[in-house]
């Protein structure tokens, strides 16, 4: 009886110490791997060029680049947006990224809609969902004009 209880104590102690080591090593390792999920993205204003150049534009496709830190690399990122002159010095800048699963939408002049090539999503000219699976409208980027230059906020 005494022998059996010593054996079961050793089994429990072995499992406990094994678990302790696994936790002590596992928590930092998991934290190390998943830490990017807790990193807040930095937002910055990106220069889209002279506002005058985009005056009266209607769903004009504009591609632009900006530099951002990507891990250990200072990378040049590329983005694509649709820009519309909303009048009174206001601008509508739509992200081309579909709110469903990230494919790039295309403006269709005939249908006056944004069409997604992946799962059939359709957004109207305000970016609202008309058809398809997206849960949210197209993202509208924050804009500002300073010294005649149109900026969008990248986040």
């Amino acid at each position: 009886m005494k022998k059996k209880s010593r054996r079961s104590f050793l089994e429990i102690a072995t499992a406990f110490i094994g678990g302790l080591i696994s936790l002590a090593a596992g928590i930092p390792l998991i934290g190390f791997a998943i830490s990017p999920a807790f990193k807040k993205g930095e937002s910055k204003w990106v220069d889209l060029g002279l506002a005058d150049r985009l005056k009266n534009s209607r769903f004009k496709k504009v591609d632009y680049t900006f530099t951002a830190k990507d891990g250990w690399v200072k990378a040049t990122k590329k983005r694509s947006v649709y820009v519309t002159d909303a009048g009174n010095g206001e601008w509508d800048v739509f992200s081309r990224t579909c709110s469903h699963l990230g494919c790039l939408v295309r403006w269709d002049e005939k249908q006056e809609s944004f069409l997604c090539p992946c799962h059939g999503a359709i957004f109207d000219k305000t970016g609202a969902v008309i058809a398809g699976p997206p849960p949210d409208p197209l993202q509208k980027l924050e804009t500002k004009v300073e010294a005649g230059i149109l900026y969008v906020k990248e986040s």
Partner: protein
Amino acid sequence: MSYIGIKQFLRERLPLAALDAHLRKPLPKHINLLFSFGSLAMFLLLLQAATGAFLAFYYSPSPEHAHNAVTYISTEVPFGAFVRGLHHWGASALVIIVVLHLLRVVLYSSYKAPRELTWIFGVLLLLVVLGFGFTGYLLPWDEKAYWATVVGVEIASTAPGLGDFVAKVLRGGTEIGAVTLSRFYALHTIWLPWLVFGLVGAHLFFVRYYGSSGTPKNTPEEMSTGKPFYPHQVFEDVVGMLILFVILAAVALFVPVPLEDVADPTNADYDPRPEWYFLFLFQLLKYFQGPFEIIGTFVIPTVGMLLLLFLPFLDKSERTVLWKRPIALTVTSICVVGIVVLTILGGTSKKLETTEAAGQETTQPIEQIQGVATPDTDAETVDEGEAVFDFQLTEEEIENAIAVEEGQQ
């Protein structure tokens, strides 16, 4: 499904009862703490595998990225310095534990029949562990990484016949560069892990198949009357693992892992030194000069490894008690003392101090200097089409040039 239900489900489908009986098989009597080194080596191998697999999330094996990636891991990723510390110091701990394990086996005559195959696979594992060390320390792509690999590969190149071929295969060309880093990374993270997986499997199979050798104290009757492997031996092993992990974690927390400047193939001011576990070889090479170089680079390491590998066939005596094996004791002692002394000498050897010869920079013909001058491409003021070299002519040189030109006209 309850816990008992799950247990029942698994018992019906897996040979758990047979596994349980196998794990509870009694060990020989007189097993002591020295018999935990194998389990500790296994634990460290698993820890290296785990930390290495996680480090790979943030590493990029290219000369442009490797050093920055390692800096990023050490300075910006949460727990990065700790994980890298565990991996770096864990490698050193693994070498120490594997060598202690080997010494225990030698001192207790555990390599003798019928355990020759256990020993051979163990020695192959030692070689693979050293291979992990050699391929691993190139990965940070710092000065130490670069120069230690240059020297290491040059050592391989001295092997008669195939040396040059082996060196080119290792480097992926004629010099250390992007291809070398890429293949060392592949060796370190794919090829060697598969190899170690197979070798550990074979080693463990033979350990279990032939059973523990026990100590020389054991009588044949005592070979299976000791405590069961599980939970008694396993408990002692996990206590050892806990102690080892606490020490390793403390070192990883408080001793920063060195990272030197990024590798520079033109930095002649750098004194290359290998990791401490190759220092004995580094020191040994100094004693064999000129035509005898090959003795240090090839003959001694190869013969030493072959002797170690085939030790069970060289020492066939049935005596197991240490003081009745004077030759084994003497040879082991000489090897251990020799390696320790060479390691200390290598570690404490003075770094080279030189005095630059005056005007050394201008010993090359001036055309050659101009030919290799580095354009100042970082300078923002350089416009397209504008000369990027800034060689000022003296007034005298300008006058001479005009005179020559006028003379030609």
